[in-house]
Each structure stands twice: as structure tokens, then as C-alpha cells.
């Protein structure tokens, strides 16, 4: 294997790894702040039944 081919292969691997980590990290941050939070617990009375 020639030195430049060696360097190219390593460059592609490292660049790909860097891109993967960055994209994954950004997606995680976006997903964290985008999704709505679940409802909190209710007051515990039977008001939901009376709504019907």
C-alpha cells in the first residue's frame, strides 16, 4: 500500500467517524428539546369521569 493511499484511507475513516459523532450529537440535542413533556399527574379526584 502506497503512503498516500494509507493516508487517504485513514483520513476517510477519521473524517467519517467525526461526522458521525457530530451528527449524532446534534440530533440528540435537537430531539431532547423538541419533544413535548408528558402530562403531570392529575388532582386525583373523579373529575375526569364527570367530564363525560
Amino acid at each position, binding site marked *: *500500500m502506497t*503512503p498516500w493511499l*494509507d*493516508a487517504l*484511507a*485513514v483520513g476517510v*475513516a*477519521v473524517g*467519517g*467517524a*467525526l461526522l*458521525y*459523532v457530530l451528527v*449524532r*450529537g446534534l440530533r*440528540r440535542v435537537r*430531539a*431532547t*428539546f423538541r*419533544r*413535548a*413533556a*408528558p*402530562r*403531570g*399527574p*392529575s388532582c*386525583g*379526584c*373523579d*373529575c*375526569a*369521569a*364527570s*367530564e*363525560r
Partner: protein
Amino acid sequence: MTALATRDMAWRPAGHAAPPAAPPVVPAQPLRVALVGNPNCGKSTLFNALTGRREKVANFPGVTVERVEGRYEHGGATVMVLDLPGTYSLSPDAPDEALTLDVVHGRHAGTAAVDVFVVVLDAENLERNLYLATEVLELGRPTVIVLNRMDRLAAAGMKIDVFELIDALGAVVVPTVASTRAGIDRLRHVIARAPGLPLAPVPPARVAGAGDAERRYGNIAAVMRRAVTRDGAARPRLSDRVDAVLLHRVWGPVVFVAVMAIAFQALFTVAAPVAALLQSALGAVASVVRAAMPAGELRSLLVDGVIGGVGSVIVFVPQIALLFLCIGVLEDSGYLSRAAFVMDRFVRPFGLQGKSFIPLLSGFACAVPAILATRTIPQTRERLATIMVVPLMSCSARLPVYALLIAAFVPPATVAGAFTLQGVALLAMYLLGTVAALASAAVFRRTLLRGATRALILEMPPYAVPTPRVLFATVSQRVGVFVRRAGTVIFAISVLLWALGRYPRPHEHAAPEVQLAESSLGRVGRAVEPAVRPLGLDWKVGVAMVASFAAREVFVSTMATMYGVESGDGARPALAARLRAAKDAAGRPAYTIAAALGLLAFYVFALMCTSTLAVTVRETGGGWRGAGWAALQFSYMLALAWGCGFLVYRAGLALGLGVAA
């Protein structure tokens, strides 16, 4: 008419041919079906049987806390099935139950209106389960009643006359045993025809409030008298006799600790031979690559970065599999609820209740589902306190770090016959995390999250022999997640760390140690070294600690990459041996037993998991409010980790452990 139509569709004894049924309703849109029922009545098992999916099922209440959707085809029509969290009534008590109520009333954002309700009843606990069924029937919507777990009636000394039940409820009833898929075809057949069936009669003059509940209980008592017969006096069941020991004030906690000790010992003794085989196989792969490729950057990347880094994590697959097998057995056998009941007495002084203990125990597997599981806790402050301390429970990602450091620095001496010092050390790590979680909960409940602790009401599921199919599904799914992480995140980080540890290379002919020290990684290491030096650790561990903020297992792969481990000796993990033999610049042991114990303590407490932080943000209210709770969680755990690491290291030095292993 109602009774006749619904009787025709129910299960009938052998030899009784069913009369011609009404044709199925084939809607243009997919038929939307929602499974509702009490917690632990088998909804998710039924969901899996209907849709062929493999959603998590276990033998304790509160497994499903989110809406899960699946589909199947029947008679040319698509049926969408929603599996909903269990609830005892349509008056929600906890966030998971509120979700079910929202879907039932068509108020849940992102969920279309439901066409057919399938109310799943645990046949063995019919009377209690019927309350929710009557509430759903009163909605006046197409409803199918599923009488699940029919196989357990004989052991319980019960008989249910299905036709009487149909007449009493005025609704179609399908008996099933979801775990063996019995009755599933008939259920699919009935669901397809449900929109065309007559509706159950709705009480004409209903008054909301307490009177409503009394009327329902009155109706249920009448239904039970008509449809259920019991064989003589109730005999004490085997389950009750086992509970007499497992829920005993003294023996209960003793059995719990013994179960945990055996599980953690097994993680070392049973998994070790398989791990050694994997280590040898990886060594062989590295040798083949080394022999097949000319020396150069790519070969170094493959051998030191990829095989060394990813391989060092992959060798822990047997231990991960065994950990999830142990957790699966605990969940499926019905013991988990007993453990929560037994531990209720011990966790109450810390401001938590037994219901918090199930998420805490789930935290041994992974903090993310454990935090979701806190939705079963009705009180907001108790739930928040539980979320804040769940990540202190040692999750499976910590196992590779523990296993590496314990294998390297704790001798495998025998203790009390069947146990080894390594197994005991592993148990101690898990206990330390549990004690820290309880102590932290006590602090939260006395400061930020003050409030009364609610009494524990928990259903004891029947004991069951764990199903091999369910256990296999759980273990293979979790091992799959672990291997996928190794093949994606850990692979990518290993490549990056290899590059950071390889470049720049100012001295081409310098010794590898000098080159590593001069690399980008070495420079980062020197920058973080002042923070880890008080813990008796060097810059290499500092770098691995920083890298492991991406994922805890990265600690192991980073150490492996830095030490350039590419082959195993077959007898013990190669990286452990390298750590034991490592020397500093002055030729002294790089890592002492005291420093290793301090590092173990650090990893017990540190929150190094972006997924956990993300789920904390969402489950504590989302937005900046959630981010605030997550920031607090991360900061207090980091402070606790460093402080305890320092104390353990200092205590180790005082006890004469400042020596090499």
C-alpha cells in the same frame, strides 16, 4: 339480540359449532384498536401476540408507561393496535394512567380516535378488573372484552361461565391465553366485526361522583354471582406459602440480599470463560490483520483503534447477557414486586416508597427506561426525587468499567466458600450506588422536593416460571443494543481517539510512550491531569474519563487504544494485565489499589450518559425547566463522584493500599 350476537362470537366448548357470524366490517381506513386494562393483566403479551411484535413484557405492574403502536392484517383490512399503560379506572392517578385516559377520550395529541376498545381482564382477578371494563362499556363505544389468563383458573379454584358473563355485561367476551397465543385468531375475527356489533346498554340516568362508583360495584357483584363459581373454601395457594417467606420481615430482606449476591457472583464466575474465549478470538483477528497488512497508519488504526478499542468492549458481551438474564428472571418470576414490597420499609425513611424501588431496580439495566418507569409514581415530588437519583444505580454500561478494574486490581481470593473477592467487590459497587441513591433521595426530599410520602399500594403478581421465549427476547434485544453501540458510537469514538493519540507525530523515531504523550490526546491529558491527580490517577485515565462522557464503556476502549492492546493471553483480559503492570515515568506502579478503588467509586457516582440527561430533560417538564433539573443531576453526581473518589483513595492510602495489585 345483543346477547345472541355476542354469544355467537365468543369461545364455545369443543363440539359446539358456531353459527354463521356477521360479515367483517372492512373499513377504508385502518381499524384503530386500543388495548386497555389493569396493570399486569397481560396487555403487552396480547399486543405482541396480535401484532407479532416483541415489546417488553414482564411479570410486574407498570411495564408499559408509553403508548406503543403495532399493526396486523386481517381479512384484507389493516388493524392498528395501541398498547396503553395499565390503569385501574378511568380516573388517573399517575402520569402513565393519564396517558391512557387521554387516548380513551380522544384527547391525546398525535393519536387518532379509537374505533374499538379491547378491555383485557385478568380472569383470575375478574372482580377487580371488571371496574375498568364497566367504565369503558359505559362510554357507549364498540368494545370487546378479553378474558385473559384462562389457564390459571383451575389452579385458583375458579370457573367462569363465559356465556353468563356475556349476558351480564351485554358485550362480546373472548377468552384467551395470550402467552400461548390461544384464542388470538378468534379475537382477531371478533375485532374485525366489532364496529358492527350492538353496543352494551348504557345506564340511562348516571350521576357522576361517589354514587357512580357504588352503582358499578353493585353491578360487578351481580355479574360475579351470575358468572363465577368457586370450588369450596379458598385453599392457601403455593404463591401465598412462598410469600410467607419472601415477604417476611426478617427473611424477606435476607433473601433479597442473597439473590443479589448470587447474581453478581455469577457475572464473574459464569461469564469469565466465555469472555476469555472472545478475548482470544479478538487476539487472533488482530494477529491475522497484522500479518496480512504492511506496517502503516491504516494497520495501526485497525489493530490499535478498531480491534483494540471496540474489541475491548465486545469482550463484555457475556457479562451483559448474564446481567439481563438475571434481571429478566427477577422480572418474569414475579419477584420484583415482592422486592419492592420488602424494600418499602427500608426506603421510606429516605422519603421514597416501594413504588420508587421498581424504577431503581430497573436502573441496574439502564437508567433511561428506569426514568420512564417513574411515571407509575403518582406524586410529582416523589417522582422527581426518584428521577434525580435513578442514575446512581449502576447500569449495564458501568459493568465493563467495573469488571475491568476489579479484574485488574482485586485478587480472585475465595470468600465464604462459594464467593470470590471479585464478586463481593462487584456487589459492593452496586450496593454503594443503591445507598448513595437512597441518601441523595433523602436530601432531595428534605430540601427541594419536600412533602409527605404516600403509602404503598402495589399489586403482587402471581409467581410464574420465567418463559424462555420472553427471556431470550429480552437478553437478545439488550445484547443487540450493546453490540450496536459498540459498532457505532464506540467504533467512531475509538477511531477518533486513535487519531488524537497518533497525531501530531513530531518525533518519528521516538518511543511509543513519548509519541502518545506528545500527541493531541497527550496534551488534553496533561490539561485534565490536575483534576485527576488528587485521586492518584495519571493523565491517561484522565483522558479516558473525559472521553467516557460520551458513553461509559468508552473508558475501556480508550484505555485499550492508548495501551495498544491487540492480543489476549487467553487466561485473563489483556487490558487488565497491562493496567496492573503499567509504570509511571519514575518506574513506579502507575495505578495503586487505592487509586483503582477511588476510580471505581468515581464511576459508581458519575453521570456519564447523554441519553439519561436527555430523558431527564423530557421527563422533568422539558425545555429550560427540564434542562435545569438535568444540569442539577449532572452537577451533583459529578461532585459526589469526585468527592467520594478522593475519600476512597485517601482512605485506601491510610489502610496501606497505596501499592500495586
